[in-house]
């Protein structure tokens, strides 16, 4: 109790300190009396001007100290990094490939690596999302070689994980994947060239893929960001200090505001539970670069792959095609909407509100650049959401094949590009990630609803008494 008595403001202690300490000697020490002295000290700090500021500052500093200490308990992560030199045309596909769900799924569920033990209680997609946050794959400039050529583009792969050996194993595995895939494509390319043009010498293969900097066992751990922890603790302490000060200075008003905020949150939460859950299925498809970009391209191929594909996409997602999907007996989508609106309107709603096609890497003007895009569809039924994405993938692939076949029909005999297309070597649409099965709903976001409701409740709590006062004054 004596310790708590020291928390009273200095000015107050100068006047009452002696007699207060004498009084404490008469009391039987107990938690009840300790709490009473602490409460008295807090109130006195707030009532005596600068004491209020000191209390807020003390709480902020305490928050920062607690958060700083907590940052030492947060799991440490070791970062292993590698740099892979790879032909520029393979960089973008490599980035997309390494970050694809298929690739990460293979690593997460590899029993020799045994990553993320928490995956037993998470969904596969959540574990993959977690790994995606720990993995960085980006284009970097490799140091210039000694032969005088300028710096070459390369691929940087880094992975952060609590186990340093596993961090390195993942980086090594991914770096090898890039090199092996690149070597395999180059070797197929050389073999096909020989078969197609036995008398034409093949173009120089360019630099071979190689691991410039292998993934090492990291000695130093990275993060957690202690500064960020301390800043959050400081902010939380400040906020708490202001709230406590407000609660002590104006307890009735605080109670009213708390009731308004709680009421708003409760109403919003009830409203959120009235909205049906929505699930989103996502797939990623990729258009691979042509295997022989060096060969002449005919007039039919003047447009870049990106432009051609955008046209295909528009056709595949036409209202007629979407209407077909909507009416498919197994899907039977938007039943209620269809009862009230024409099918065309429902298809338009599907395209503009529930279906999202997003370019993950923008199509470049160059005909040999690759790009990928994600297709997402949100619907209250998770099976149907997945099925729709699968249907759209099929429609895109079908349409793409039709376009290729039409170009082959128009090609002159002996056209090399036509020959390459016939052998599926010119360019190729590939499903990088198949349509996911959404296990958890993406909407409604109940925590956002609750926070919004709480904010609205607070606003009403602040404005309502003012409006009432104004009304009384004017009356």
């Amino acid at each position, binding site marked *: *109790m004596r310790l708590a008595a020291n928390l009273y403001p200095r000015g107050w202690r100068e006047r*009452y300190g*002696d*007699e*207060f300490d004498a*009084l404490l000697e008469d009391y039987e020490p107990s938690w009840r009396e300790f709490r*009473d002295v602490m409460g*008295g000290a807090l*109130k006195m700090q707030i009532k005596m001007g600068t004491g209020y500021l000191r209390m807020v500052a003390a709480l902020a500093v305490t928050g920062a100290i607690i958060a700083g200490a907590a940052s030492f308990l947060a799991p440490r992560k070791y970062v292993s990094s590698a740099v892979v030199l790879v032909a520029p045309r393979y960089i973008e596909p490599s980035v997309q490939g390494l970050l694809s769900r298929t690739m990460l799924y293979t690593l997460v569920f590899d029993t020799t690596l045994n990553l993320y033990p928490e995956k037993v209680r998470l969904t596969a997609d959540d574990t993959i999302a977690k790994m995606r946050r720990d993995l960085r794959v980006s284009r970097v400039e490799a140091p210039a070689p000694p032969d005088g050529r300028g710096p070459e583009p390369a691929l940087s792969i880094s992975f952060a994980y609590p186990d340093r050996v596993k961090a390195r194993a993942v980086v090594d595995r991914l770096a090898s994947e890039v090199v092996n895939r690149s070597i395999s494509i180059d070797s197929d390319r050389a073999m096909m060239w020989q078969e197609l043009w036995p008398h034409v010498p093949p173009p120089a293969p360019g630099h071979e893929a190689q691991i410039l900097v292998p993934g090492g066992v990291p000695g130093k751990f990275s993060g957690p960001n202690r500064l960020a922890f301390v800043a959050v603790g400081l902010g939380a302490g400040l906020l708490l200090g202001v709230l406590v000060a407000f609660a002590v200075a104006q307890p009735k008003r605080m109670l009213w505001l708390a009731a308004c905020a709680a009421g708003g949150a409760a109403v919003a939460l009830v409203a959120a539970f009235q909205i049906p859950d929505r699930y989103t299925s996502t797939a990623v498809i990729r258009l691979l670069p042509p295997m022989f970009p060096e060969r002449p391209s005919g007039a039919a191929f003047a447009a870049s792959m990106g432009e051609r594909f955008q046209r295909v996409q528009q056709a595949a997602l036409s209202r007629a095609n979407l209407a077909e999907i909507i009416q498919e007996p197994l899907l039977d989508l938007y039943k209620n909407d269809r009862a009230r609106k024409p099918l065309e309107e429902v298809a338009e709603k599907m395209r503009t509100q529930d279906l999202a096609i997003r370019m993950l890497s923008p199509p470049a003007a160059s005909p040999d650049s690759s790009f990928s895009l994600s297709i997402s569809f949100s619907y209250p039924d998770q099976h149907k959401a997945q099925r729709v994405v699968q249907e759209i993938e099929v429609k895109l692939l079908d349409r793409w094949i039709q376009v290729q076949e039409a170009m082959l029909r128009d090609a002159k005999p002996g056209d090399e590009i036509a020959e390459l297309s016939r052998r599926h070597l010119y360019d190729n649409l590939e499903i990088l990630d198949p349509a996911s099965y959404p296990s958890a709903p993406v909407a409604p976001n109940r925590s956002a609803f609750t926070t919004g409701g709480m904010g609205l409740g607070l606003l009403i709590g602040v404005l309502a008494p003012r409006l009432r006062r104004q009304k009384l004054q004017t009356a």
Partner: protein
Amino acid sequence: MTDPAILVLASLAEGDKHGYAMVLDIERFADVHLGPGTLYGAITRLEQQGWIQPLEAEDRRRPYRLSAAGRGYLEEQVRSLDQVVKTALRRLKHA
């Protein structure tokens, strides 16, 4: 009636007392236990209002005396409370 300030004034109406003597007196006549923080919160407020006066400390324990203004305030509060009590009793009889 558990307002610590009124309880302290009521205790001092009997005569000068130091802190712990007030606590024991209040426990006896009102059956309310005042913690040290609550008691000195009330004493600080009452002294600032001029309703009680500090006397010379005896062995670190300082007695307090009810001032004339404090007596007036207490009488006013008691009268108001008395009216509330009488009205409530009358209504309860007729209910």
